């Protein structure tokens, strides 16, 4: 399941549903997704091993991992919802609540810190209209957070916007970068 197949830079189709969900929970693993999960299960000797990939599928389709989704995945993989929740809360990339249409992650770990990552964060906060880190902008478009080392230290400052990985971001380049996201 490649990132492009997962949707690349485009915001997941269902985030609006996730944020302002009305009506009962719609299962993720139906149709094509169910088939993908079934294929995935053949790669490992245990069902539990498909947990992280299954959660990625949920996050792609819904923009975040809700408790109902955790229960659905638990049922399919013969785990308890509490167990799934324990895993979800361990891994920082799974969102446990809806986020902005574009989720911006800026690396600020030490190597990037000495290359001016904090100014990049400030620039993002200013130009997105997000008042604080982790708080979605009033137009629901952006959420900006600091993250730990993104593994592109020589291309400081690296930034992720949803699934897109962008290197060498400077404070000056932020407005231009943001203009790509409608």
């Amino acid at each position, binding site marked *: *399941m*490649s*990132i*492009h197949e997962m949707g690349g830079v485009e915001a997941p189709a269902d985030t609006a549903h996730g944020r302002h969900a009305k009506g009962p929970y719609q299962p993720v693993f139906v149709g094509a997704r169910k088939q993908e999960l079934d294929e995935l299960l053949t*790669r*490992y*000797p*245990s*069902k*539990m*091993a*498909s*947990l*992280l*990939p299954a*959660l*990625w599928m949920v996050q792609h389709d819904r923009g975040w991992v809700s408790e109902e989704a955790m229960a659905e995945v638990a049922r399919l*993989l013969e785990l308890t919802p509490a167990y799934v929740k*324990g*895993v979800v809360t*361990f*891994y*920082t*990339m*799974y969102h446990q609540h809806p986020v902005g249409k574009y989720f911006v*992650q800026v690396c*600020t*770990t*030490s*190597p990037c*810190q*000495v*290359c001016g990552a904090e100014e990049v964060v400030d620039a993002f906060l200013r130009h997105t209209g997000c008042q604080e880190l982790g708080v979605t902008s009033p137009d629901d478009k952006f959420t900006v957070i600091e*993250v*730990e*080392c*993104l*593994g*592109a*230290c*020589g*291309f*400081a400052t690296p930034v*992720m916007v949803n*699934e*897109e*990985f962008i*290197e*060498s971001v400077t404070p000056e380049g932020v407005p231009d970068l943001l203009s790509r996201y409608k």
Partner: protein
Amino acid sequence: MGYPHKPHARETTVLSQHFGDMDATTLQGWRKRGGYVALERALGMAPADIVNVVKESGLRGRGGAGFPTGVKWSFMKPGDGKPHYLCCNADESEPGTFKDREIMRWTPHALVEGCAIGAYAIGAETAYIYIRGEFTEPIDRMEAAIKEAYAAGIVGKNAMGSGKTVNVWVHRGAGAYICGEETALMNSLEGRRGNPRIKPPFPAVAGVFGQPTTINNVETLVAVPHILNEGAEWYKKFSRPDNPKSTGTKLYSVCGNIARPGNYEVPMGFPFRDFLYDLCGGPLPGRKFKAIIPGGISVPIQNLAEAEASLMDYEGFVAQGTMLGSGGVIVVDDAQNLVKFIARAARFFAHESCAQCTQCREGTAWTTKILERIAAGDGSAEDLDTLLEIADNMTGKTICVLSDSCATPVVSGLKKFRNDFESLIKKKTHHLVPAVA
């Protein structure tokens, strides 16, 4: 998308020779460049013979531990009737390190080939490549390469027509540095929280899914096809004449306050001084190097004298008060606040602690809080003693070495740059004596 620099004349580009070349990422392009010749030969060899060649070459784990790869492979007992597994550790999250992402972006087929050879050599039919969740482009390119490889029958049930089964799958991580620890990686692969395991049992005895497992770094595995093609003797030539224990080339990821950051590939034993000033272009205009960390944030900080005296191999860095580690070279110049740098490193570890061991769970956060307080100007002399005692409590007492890694920058920073800390510490007035009006 970032493109790597053109190789410096003094680099030895073995693993990195196709960096920046999009054509090398395709199966056809890889074949044109000599790809999969090694795999085909390997599948016709006895696994034990492959292990011996790798042993002879002196290849050591490039993820940070530097354990001899051939020896590690030889721990996998053949014919035990159990399914064996190869896990490729592509979780690259050690701050300062960004070599594996380049290998996967530009030469994904090299990793497929390396994994396939490695799996076959240890008697495994399945190799999982555990790639950190943030590496979206490397994941993309690896998935594409694997798809091509399956379609062309290079891997799968009848790998390259050998009759042997070799499966290679990508498994995406979800944001946890600790999953780069080999036993935590196995737990994460199994669908658990990324908690490191107690050893024994060792992975080669009971690893992923309880079965014999070998975990190797990306850079380690992609060296294997070259070793098979050119021979162990060729690989051994890349070493200091007076140190046969470190052989081959190493990709160093250079970052921080330096003129030309990026990945550089040099043979073992290369002089670090030349590396920093010549290949990487030296400090930024008007600045001077201050502190250098050659192997990722977890190895001791060097002062400039130590760095300039270092020879770049496992033993050479140990001789200068640090370790080769992952080869992530972080350079800090004299314009930086070193205390803030170390505080941010501690914050990194506090964020990534899995929470099992008391010393790590509490100690990383405590260390961070004290350092941030000092950096903000609200520290005391006692804080420095406390930091060292906490660091001592965090060293050698936990399931894995994340705890030790958090202590390392604190201890080496205080040892070699104590002035930086002391200059931030206020001279506290006595609170018990009222100020004279």
